[in-house]
């Protein structure tokens, strides 16, 4: 899957590239609107990650034009401005999502997955997890035919860990995902523990949850 990263901050673009490569995305980098335009003409992309604060042109204008050249790509706006108006305008112009800087790369990947799921229909959204099946589109967890009742937050946590499986996630990374702008780092971490405890309790009643590991001093990870 090809991704175009349009970001004037070189280091930042390189970090995004490094991260997405590990999840087997192919990345092109553009540091200016001009470069981006040229690349969009020559290639076709599944994702275009667009920083609004480009040096040579207004990001929203770039988006409007890009939508014409690459109508099939999914667009995620990245911005440090974070003005509400930008967000609304960006989504109006057809962006699929909006991530204010600073954002977590894990969150970026999670948003990309969600867009993919949305665009590809409901078919391939069932993911096996040990003896369980997680249906990401319907937001439900099954053991054989039985549905396991998880709260909204519990499901958010489980699916996020599942997406980033085999990778230790810190409590604040999990908190950031679950509570977003409302999260308060230190205090929220305690509630992550409570939620994990509940997930374990609810799912152990049906089958083994050995895959959900606590990593001392760090956080949690799903290992499969």
């Amino acid at each position, binding site marked *: 899957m090809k991704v175009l990263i349009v970001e004037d*901050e070189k*280091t*930042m673009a390189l*970090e*995004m590239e*490094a*991260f997405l490569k*590990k999840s087997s995305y192919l990345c092109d980098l553009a540091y200016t609107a001009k470069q981006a335009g040229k690349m969009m003409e020559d290639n076709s992309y599944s994702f275009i990650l667009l920083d609004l604060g480009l040096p040579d042109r207004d990001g929203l204008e770039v988006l409007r034009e890009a939508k014409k050249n690459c109508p099939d790509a999914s667009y995620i706006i990245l911005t*440090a*401005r*974070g*003005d*509400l*108006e930008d967000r609304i305008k960006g989504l109006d112009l057809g962006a699929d999502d909006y991530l204010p*800087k*600073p*954002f*977590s*790369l*894990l969150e970026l990947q999670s948003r990309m997955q969600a867009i993919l799921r949305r665009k590809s229909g409901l078919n391939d959204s069932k993911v096996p997890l040990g003896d369980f099946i997680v249906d990401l589109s319907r937001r439900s967890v099954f053991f054989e035919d039985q549905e396991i009742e998880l*709260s909204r*937050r519990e499901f958010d946590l489980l699916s996020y860990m599942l997406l980033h499986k085999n*990778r*230790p996630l*810190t409590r*604040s*990374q999990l908190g*950031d995902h679950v509570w977003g*702008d*409302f*999260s*308060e*780092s*230190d*205090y929220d971490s*305690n*509630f992550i523990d*409570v*939620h994990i405890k509940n997930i374990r309790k609810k799912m152990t009643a049906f089958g083994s949850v050995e895959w959900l590991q606590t990593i001392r*001093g*760090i*956080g949690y990870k799903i290992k499969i």
Partner: protein
Amino acid sequence: MKLHSKLTLYTTLSKIAIVILFIWLLPRLVNDVASQYTNYYLREQKKKVLDNIQKKGIDYYLGGDSSYGSYTMLKEEYISLEPANMELHTDTIETSRRIVENDTLTYRLLNHVFEYGNKKYMLEIGKTITAIDQYNGPLQRVALYVLIALIAFTLVIDLIFTRLLLRPLGLIIRTKLVNRKFPFKEDLVPVKTSTTDFKYLDNSLIGLMNKIKEAFEKEREFTSNASHEMMTPISILQNKLENLMMDNEMSEASQEKIIGMMNTLNRLKKIVRSLLFISRIENDQFVKTDHIKPRLLVEEVVKELEDRVEARGIDIRLDIYAELTLHGINRDLIFQLIYNLVNNAIRYNKEGGKILISDQLIQEKSYTIIIEDTGTGIPQNDLVNIFDRFKKSKIAGEGYGLGLSIVKTIAQYHGISIDVRSVYGKGSAFNIIFPADMVSISATS
């Protein structure tokens, strides 16, 4: 009391005092003048009598008798002349009774002893008190009427003038001080006045307010710029650390250190984000055109925090009954405001504590949502500055963070006031008071 009322009261009272003093003084004054004049009149009479005696000789009057008496028809005045066997003395004037033809009358009397032809005589000239006093009554009455008329006239003039004089002051207070909510948005118009004191006061106020406004603008700009500028480096650092974390060959110890760094960076991120949020509110970036039903909004907040309430075993009760709509607000911001307060009520509560969210509608005045908890409470010393940015509590080094600063900023932006009551160790109550012009009572539902 207002200056204008004080001046009005003072002017009125002082005039009344003058009238009372005058009423008390007037009879004495008139009597005094009348008696002075009578004395003068009696002395003049005496001179005339003595002149006549010099010219015509005493016998002309005595006519062989040992004494002489004469009075007018109504006995208002009389003169008597008789030999006296006493030493010469200075004249005396006294009020005394005399019997004149069987009538006992009170007279003002001049007594004069003189020698004439080696004989001593006593001359007595009298005038009845009634005659003396006959003009006193009418005179006093007229004087009093004139005085009252004059006082009333000057009083009206004084009051009108005071009013005119103080009008600029009232205008300064009304336009510059009363109901002024910071930050001042509209331009300040100088009050027109020819009184230099007021002009000075007004100009000083405008100057001060502009200075405050300027300082505020500068701070706002700085916060906004600085936070923006910090976002990109924080972003880069965060992503670098995240990538580093994925390195499988890293030792556990190094990984833990990276987690520590990430947590610290996370804190920095939250602070910068909150500051940016505050500066965005202060920069008017949120439109206030939403309307909400308070009960629905509070229910939504509580639902959002449900898991925390549950995890801490807190008993939360909603007593919100008023059927009304709050309008002219930004829904997201008010949500955030209530969220932060309820979140604090959970956070600083004790395990298994209670939270009560209730409301109160004072007709035509204001609508209040009250969030009470049975938590740790806030020490009295801290109460004043819990809403300030980065203020640390004196206990246990725990800061209140930016949550309450955000609450304050949102409240200020909407013209909502927040009242806090707290007993340390027992709990706190936050009152969110919505001004009357935001509240519309809905007849439906």
